[in-house]
């Protein structure tokens, strides 16, 4: 056997970090390609297993510091990120605008530079304006993770939705997904559409014209204004929250009329094909976009989405902080995707 060769590249294909390995930030799903998304979802399996243990904690990110910097209200996303960081043994600091110097007029940039001076490895940012996380990425050496910016993006939500679907359906190829409701103001919808279509799903947007963006041309989606014609032929019904806080103009006559046409009522839910999944990013307005009873049905995977959120965020934190980067070598690493 002397002198024979064996190619080890094949054996190592499952651990190839080259796709995600150089990524410093997670700012938008637009620059994630299908193999990267699939790698992340595969990695999430490991963290689901960690979360199910008696002691759900591993020392992977010991000594790293993760800051949650939320300029906008949130309970589940912030708690989810903090839980994820703690399960990886990272230290967490949280920053709430209401009790911070931002109220004294400190700028975002000064805030970031102040926090960074304390020594941090990752910042999880939510802001009401689109693009703030990308801007922050240019100001700091820490890894920046977008936890929602304006109407723009909410990458980890889309990834956890894709993971939830994958765990039920195996693959998203050819799966018919209806995204129903306020697409216009929804960063969740923008991120979901991109991730779902990249993974091969057929996405239909269902909304009144006033709740759709001016153009849906950049996306490979169908658009319908008639929920009843779609509901019988959908494998996944993804409901969006009516974002009353972002609605400054009268886009629907009344919430009751919206519910009558675009809410997932009990009658509509009965018409869904067998095994169709019902999803919602939360927080739900029961009785508006989804009937209270429907949200508690066995095929509603809404709480599962939340549970998977922790594991997906562990995978994201591990990928941006973990493999192949020494904390001392921060400055050598170019800010890939920081645009």
């Amino acid at each position, binding site marked *: *056997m*002397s*002198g*024979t*060769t*064996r*190619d*080890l*590249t094949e*054996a*190592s294909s*499952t*651990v*190839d*970090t*080259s796709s995600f*390995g150089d990524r410093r930030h997670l700012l938008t799903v637009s620059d994630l390609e299908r193999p990267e998304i699939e790698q992340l979802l595969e*990695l999430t*399996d*490991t963290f*689901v*297993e*960690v979360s199910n*243990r*008696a*002691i759900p*904690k*591993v*020392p*992977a*990110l010991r000594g790293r510091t993760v800051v949650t910097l939320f300029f906008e209200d949130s309970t589940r996303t912030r708690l989810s990120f903090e839980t994820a960081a703690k399960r*990886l043994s990272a230290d967490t600091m949280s920053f709430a605008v209401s009790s911070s110097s931002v109220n004294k007029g400190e700028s975002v940039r000064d805030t970031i530079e102040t926090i960074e001076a304390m020594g941090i490895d990752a910042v999880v940012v939510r802001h009401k304006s689109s693009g703030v996380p990308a801007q922050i990425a240019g100001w700091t050496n820490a890894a920046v993770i977008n936890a929602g910016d304006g109407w723009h993006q909410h990458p980890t939500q889309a990834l956890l939705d894709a993971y939830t679907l994958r765990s039920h359906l195996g693959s998203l190829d050819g799966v018919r997904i209806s995204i129903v409701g306020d697409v216009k103001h929804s960063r969740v919808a923008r991120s979901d559409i991109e991730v779902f279509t990249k993974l091969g799903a057929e996405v239909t947007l269902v909304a009144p014209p006033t709740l759709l963006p001016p153009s849906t041309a950049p996306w490979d989606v169908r658009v319908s204004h008639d929920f009843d014609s779609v509901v019988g032929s959908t494998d996944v019904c993804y409901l969006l929250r009516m974002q009353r806080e972002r609605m400054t103009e009268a886009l629907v006559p009344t919430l009751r009329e919206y519910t009558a046409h675009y809410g997932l009522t009990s009658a509509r839910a009965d018409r869904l094909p067998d095994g169709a999944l019902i999803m919602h990013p939360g927080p739900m307005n029961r009785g508006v976009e989804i009937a209270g009873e429907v949200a508690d049905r066995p095929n509603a995977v809404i709480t599962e989405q939340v549970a998977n959120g922790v594991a997906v965020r562990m995978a994201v934190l*591990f990928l941006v*902080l*973990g*493999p*192949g*980067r*020494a*904390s001392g070598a921060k400055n050598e690493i170019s800010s890939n995707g920081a645009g």
Partner: protein
Amino acid sequence: MAERERRMTRPYGGVFVARTQVMDAADIHRALRRMAHEVIEHNHGHEEIVLVGLQTGGVEMAHALATVIEEIEELEEGEPGVPVGTLDVALYRDDIGIRPVLPEEVTDIPVDLDGRVVVLVDDVLFTGRTIRAALDAVCDYGRPRAVQLAVMVDRGHRELPIRPDYVGKNLPTRRNELVDVTMSGVQLGELQKQ
């Protein structure tokens, strides 16, 4: 396990060029048989034992060892066999951040480890750092009565005070050499960069 680290070290891949065949399939099987006898002798039977294969090289080895132990102990159909678990220690490594480390497979420990004897199984024992990580990981799953270590090849160059309890073959190596272990044999060679 050292081999796994190398495969994951940048630049990825490379071609393993075998120089010497050290063991063939029959040698591997004979070594497994002897190790199985030693495991049973040392533990006065198989009842308390849980085999845990380290991802990825140790998994096949652990299953093979369990099969041999069950043969030797002449277990009947339906009798509980020797449980085999798998462990991915990537999240416990001390070199996360120094070199690329990603979990390869999901850890699967099928039984409660409290009070049992865990035999960690791996293909190659090199620096001992993987085993150090595995000890940490095992302790997160329970409190075994004892933890033992079985490896097919001990190639030396330890960096930690760790020693194996059951060894297929002691193989003196140079640090830059590569040991490739499969069920069909053991080869010594080098990794050639592409």
